[in-house]
């Protein structure tokens, strides 16, 4: 019987977390109607998510595109089918690697700092202070972050797709083993990629952006226990959003194909 107790407790814990997260999500969606009067903070959050993450996201995308090209290109060259490299790099960047890699990056960079910031506000009574000032913390803090991520993450992903594809093209042209000229690469890629693929990729990115803000805010609001609690909440937000992004990615891919 003693063995069952921890199992029961963790089931309760997971159930409680899921319930609270759904409640927070509903509350955030409800406050979308207040978005017009919170435009300044929405734009501030967008610039934090978008502009501050852009350089590193592009760098990552560039190398992802390059490594993809090297790996598959040299393999394809063995069979003389290296022209297909454009389609392969393009489709992977647009459908999977662009959205997923960029979102993981944003989760690690922005999601964790959201959790830390809101967590610190929770621990240092600032959330309580907001409540006594009759300011709903979900409206004031969470909703702008969610909206910002919903738009800024797809924007980042669009850049990442382009940069990754360019990186792959450069490697294909320069690498002597592959040796596919850029115009061949480009044509092959555009023939393979449908605009629907791009829309789907960006939609994925939007969902991932939502997950990042949702998790960051939830974990932040739940922080407790001083400076240590703030530290723990950053780690927890990264782990939880990685996990949810991966699960969502599978489900979205499964049902959008």
């Amino acid at each position, binding site marked *: 019987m003693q063995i069952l107790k921890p199992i029961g407790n963790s089931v309760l814990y997971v159930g409680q977390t899921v319930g609270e997260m759904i409640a927070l999500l509903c509350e955030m969606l409800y406050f979308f109607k207040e978005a*017009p009067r919170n435009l300044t903070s929405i734009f501030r959050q967008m610039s934090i998510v978008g502009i501050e993450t852009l350089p590193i996201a592009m760098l990552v995308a560039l190398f992802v595109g390059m490594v993809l090209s090297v790996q598959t290109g040299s393999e394809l060259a063995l069979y003389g089918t290296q022209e297909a490299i454009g389609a392969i790099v393009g489709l992977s960047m647009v459908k999977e690697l662009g959205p997923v890699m960029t979102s993981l990056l944003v989760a690690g960079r922005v999601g964790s700092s959201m959790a830390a910031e809101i967590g610190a506000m929770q621990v240092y009574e*600032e959330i309580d202070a907001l409540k*006594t000032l009759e*300011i709903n913390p979900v409206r004031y803090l969470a909703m702008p972050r969610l909206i910002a991520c919903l738009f800024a993450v797809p924007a980042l992903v669009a850049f990442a797709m382009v940069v990754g594809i360019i990186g792959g093209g450069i490697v294909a042209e320069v690498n002597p083993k592959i040796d596919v000229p850029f115009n061949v690469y480009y044509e092959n890629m555009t023939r393979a990629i449908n605009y629907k693929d791009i829309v789907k990729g960006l939609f994925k990115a939007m969902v991932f952006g939502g997950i990042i803000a949702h998790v960051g805010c939830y974990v932040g609001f739940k922080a407790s226990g001083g400076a240590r609690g703030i530290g723990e909440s950053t780690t927890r937000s990264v782990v939880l959003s990685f996990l949810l992004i991966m699960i969502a990615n599978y489900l979205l891919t499964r049902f959008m194909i």
Partner: protein
Amino acid sequence: MFSDDKSNGGNFLGNFWAKVAHGFSPAIIEGETCQIYHEGSNGVSIEIEKLNKSFGDHHVLKDIDLSIKPGETFSIIGPSGTGKSLLLKHIVKLIEADSGRIIINGHDIEDPEVRNGSSDFRYSMVFQSSALFNSLTVGENVGLWLREKRICPEVRIRRIIQEKLRLVGLEGKEELRTSELSGGMKKRVAIARSLAMNPDLILYDEPTAELDPVTSDELARVIMSLKDKVKLTTIIVSHDLNFALYLSNRVAMMHDGEIIALGTPEEIKKSQNPIVRNFIYTTTKGIQGEGD
């Protein structure tokens, strides 16, 4: 609608920005008056009846009964961990009681009709950690409630911010960032932020915690001067006995989640209750030692 029609000049861009920043609420556009923001507040009365709160097996507040008169400065003293902050959080509705009632000016605070910011009364709290928002400047912190509430035009908000900062002795410090402030200044900004609501009830949680004696003396003077300038009910929670005795009309001593003594500072000093005597003795030991 929210404003009278006294138009104000001023630069177009600045006004436009103010409108964007405040989401085009009508109040921001023109005019001088503030809805529901009357000068001068009235202290409120507070009745706490048989309040109980537990966290799991830990019964923190046990049958608290308290009655606070309008305009009174009331202190709650006692060692750490006895539930003083928790009691305050019940009064400002941050925490719900397991049982018992809190009645402010004849209204049960659980009554959904009674909200903070309604015309009946307003309360605000100065938190132990000051709880200033460090993404905002001093002025923005003080003006936050007014701007979010959108009951005042921007010109008027600026004037109110100035006035409240003057009350706490921080004139002209609007543009400072909160990270540039000392502990005592943070407390005073937090007080100004609370005063900007024009509250009828103000609660201080450990106002002198983490402050040196000189600064806490200054803070005592600020709180004293507010008593003369603004008429409101004040509740101070503190483990600093001298501070509480100096400022208050009445003092309650809390121990283990119960009120064990209640009276004027004189009565508390003379109390025969052994726990009170012990608390007074331990907190004034050094001073007595010198006197002997």
